[in-house]
């Protein structure tokens, strides 16, 4: 029988993060993945929001993962009458030019290459990865988890198991650690992937997501509050299209999703003007996939309280029910929880105590994590059902604005400010890391510069076209900032510490300030065309610069 310090189940988004950190701490770590190639069973329509990158694992923030397109905002279509073409737009959540698209709200990604990239980074750190291996059971001795049994009948012992199995959580349910979720909190996502020329995606979408919301009776989308209207994600040379609906309605009835998804897709794509006129003639269906996710677990107090650890085991990401209710994006929470799980695993292994009582510090830290808690309890998608119930356009507008428009900042600012202050207190140098990340990610996207086996390697560069003077200034400025942050670290830490108690006022303050900010943004829209040349210059600069300009200092440029 083989023995490891840590066995990580699943090489999705969270597993490699936990495994890498444990291996780096010197623990013998094995990661088991049931698919033959990492990530090929992971499905999502995926924007990974900026906060995942800013506050998540350093190797991702400072690295070069494969992304499909930066995202600078959301256009929400509130469809009042599809046949009459009567709809209104809320595009208040947008990063204006000249900041967009270098500064991004997040990055779209295909799951397969991104998970593959993460797994390769874990392997480089010493993790042993075994693919084509399904874990069928947790091994237990006196109630304590002591390892796993694979589909080949092999028993692998571990001092600690980290379970990143995904939302279904069969192993934790099988071992009696958690219960199977009720169907009304699970959403089935029906995802279409359309190929489209990059120039067309650039022209039609730019960097902006499109979401549609409409009254139930139009039958163009799942009932409000029970899934997503329609989400369209622009990728590099494709468009991802997703609708999802909960497996049961409030009255417990299970909808005929086979019939309904076809109906929504047909009704919407045959009527929606921009789909018919702009997308349909240029897009070619490349894939249709579907998958479940635990959308409303966090909103249900009883389900949220289910154990996320037991003797010898910690659950991370979707396996711990950490799906975001509004953006439907579990990746940041998977990263955060995997990072915390690894910290706790390391502490537990060093202390020689993997009991549930020792591991309860994992639960405490997850529950104290501002962004995890905000993202799993944000109410607006759920509340859309009340707009339908009252057939109130005003309510519909408000929920959409507060969920996927600028109004969201009145609900997430406290969490965001807390995270910024915590991160800065821990390492003031992170500020320079944030500033480097955005241009580097844009450069990488532009040149497809992703450092993993599926990447194209370093793109050819023409040093004679490099903006040498400007890049020297930027590089010098960033290094100066590194030095200042290192030198002034005690001061920055103290300032962040002093500000922390005030973070709780960020949401109410934002609520007060939002009308002004929104007016400002509307005004900016009018003058924005004047900034297009500047925006183009910034894009040209980042695109032509030596990428070492934006490399994380410890990885060190050349």
């Amino acid at each position: 029988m083989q023995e490891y310090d840590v066995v990580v189940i699943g090489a999705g988004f969270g597993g490699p993060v936990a495994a890498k950190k444990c291996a780096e701490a010197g623990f013998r770590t094995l990661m088991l993945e049931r698919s033959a190639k990492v990530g090929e069973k992971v499905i999502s329509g995926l924007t990974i929001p900026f906060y995942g990158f800013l506050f998540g694992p350093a190797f991702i923030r400072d690295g070069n993962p494969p992304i499909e397109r930066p995202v600078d905002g959301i256009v929400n279509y509130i469809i009042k009458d599809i046949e009459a073409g009567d709809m209104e737009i809320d595009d208040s959540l947008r990063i204006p030019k000249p900041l967009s698209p270098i500064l991004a709200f997040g990055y779209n990604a295909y799951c397969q290459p991104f998970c593959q990239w993460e797994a390769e980074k874990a392997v480089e750190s010493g993790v042993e990865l075994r693919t084509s291996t399904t874990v069928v059971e947790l091994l237990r001795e006196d109630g304590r988890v002591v390892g796993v049994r694979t589909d080949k009948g092999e028993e692998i012992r571990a001092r600690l198991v980290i379970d990143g199995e995904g939302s279904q959580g069969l192993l934790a349910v099988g071992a009696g650690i958690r219960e199977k979720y009720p169907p009304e909190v699970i959403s089935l996502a029906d995802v279409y992937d359309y190929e489209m020329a990059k120039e067309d995606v650039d022209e039609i979408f730019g960097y902006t997501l499109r979401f549609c919301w409409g009254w139930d009776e139009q039958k163009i989308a799942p009932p409000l509050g029970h899934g997503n209207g329609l989400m369209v994600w622009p990728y590099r040379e494709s468009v991802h299209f997703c609708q999802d609906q909960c497996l049961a309605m409030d009255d417990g009835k299970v909808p005929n999703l086979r019939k309904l998804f076809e109906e929504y897709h047909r009704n919407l794509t045959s009527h929606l003007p921009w789909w018919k006129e702009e997308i349909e003639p240029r897009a070619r269906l490349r894939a249709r996939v579907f998958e479940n996710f635990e959308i409303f677990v966090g909103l249900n107090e009883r389900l949220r309280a289910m154990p996320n650890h037991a003797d010898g085991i910690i659950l991370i990401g979707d396996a711990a029910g950490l799906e975001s209710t509004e953006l439907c994006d579990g990746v940041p929470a998977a990263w955060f929880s995997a990072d915390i799980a690894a910290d706790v695993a390391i502490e537990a292994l060093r202390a020689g105590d993997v009991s549930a009582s020792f591991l309860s510090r994992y639960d405490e830290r997850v529950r104290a994590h501002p962004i995890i808690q905000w993202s799993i309890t944000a109410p607006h998608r759920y509340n859309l059902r009340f707009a339908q119930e009252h057939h109130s356009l005003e309510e519909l507008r408000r929920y959409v604005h507060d969920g996927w428009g600028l109004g969201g900042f009145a609900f997430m600012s406290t969490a965001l400010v807390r995270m910024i202050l915590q991160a800065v207190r821990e390492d003031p140098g992170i500020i320079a890391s944030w500033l480097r990340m955005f241009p580097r990610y844009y450069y990488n996207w532009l040149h497809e510069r992703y450092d993993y086996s599926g990447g194209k390697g370093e793109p050819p560069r023409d040093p004679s076209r490099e903006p040498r003077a400007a890049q020297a200034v930027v590089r010098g400025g960033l290094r100066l900032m590194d030095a200042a942050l290192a030198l002034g670290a005690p001061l920055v830490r103290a300032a962040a510490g002093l500000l922390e108690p005030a973070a709780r006022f960020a949401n109410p303050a934002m609520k007060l300030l939002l009308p002004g900010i929104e007016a400002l943004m509307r005004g900016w829209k009018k003058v924005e065309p004047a900034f297009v040349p500047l925006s183009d210059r910034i894009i040209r600069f980042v695109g032509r610069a030596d990428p070492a300009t934006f490399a994380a200092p410890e990885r060190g440029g050349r």
Partner: protein
Amino acid sequence: MARTFEEFPGVEWVEGAGLFIRVIEERCDGCANCVKVCLADCYEISGKKARIRDLDKCMECASCWYVCPRDAIEFSWPPGGTGFRTDWG
């Protein structure tokens, strides 16, 4: 060996998955919830009981397992390296 189906472009099913979902007939009351949520058409009702037609197009989402009110569906993951795969998820 992998199979493809026109209905689900961009997806392949690697052989060897076997019957990783099972209906416990004694528990099934034929409510057809599993039939309604399965986008891969894996189920049918025959003799007032749910029956697995085949798992050829199953994408392992477990919707059937969630919606069964009588716990009549046993769901497990297929053996490693088998079942569906896609590059476009």
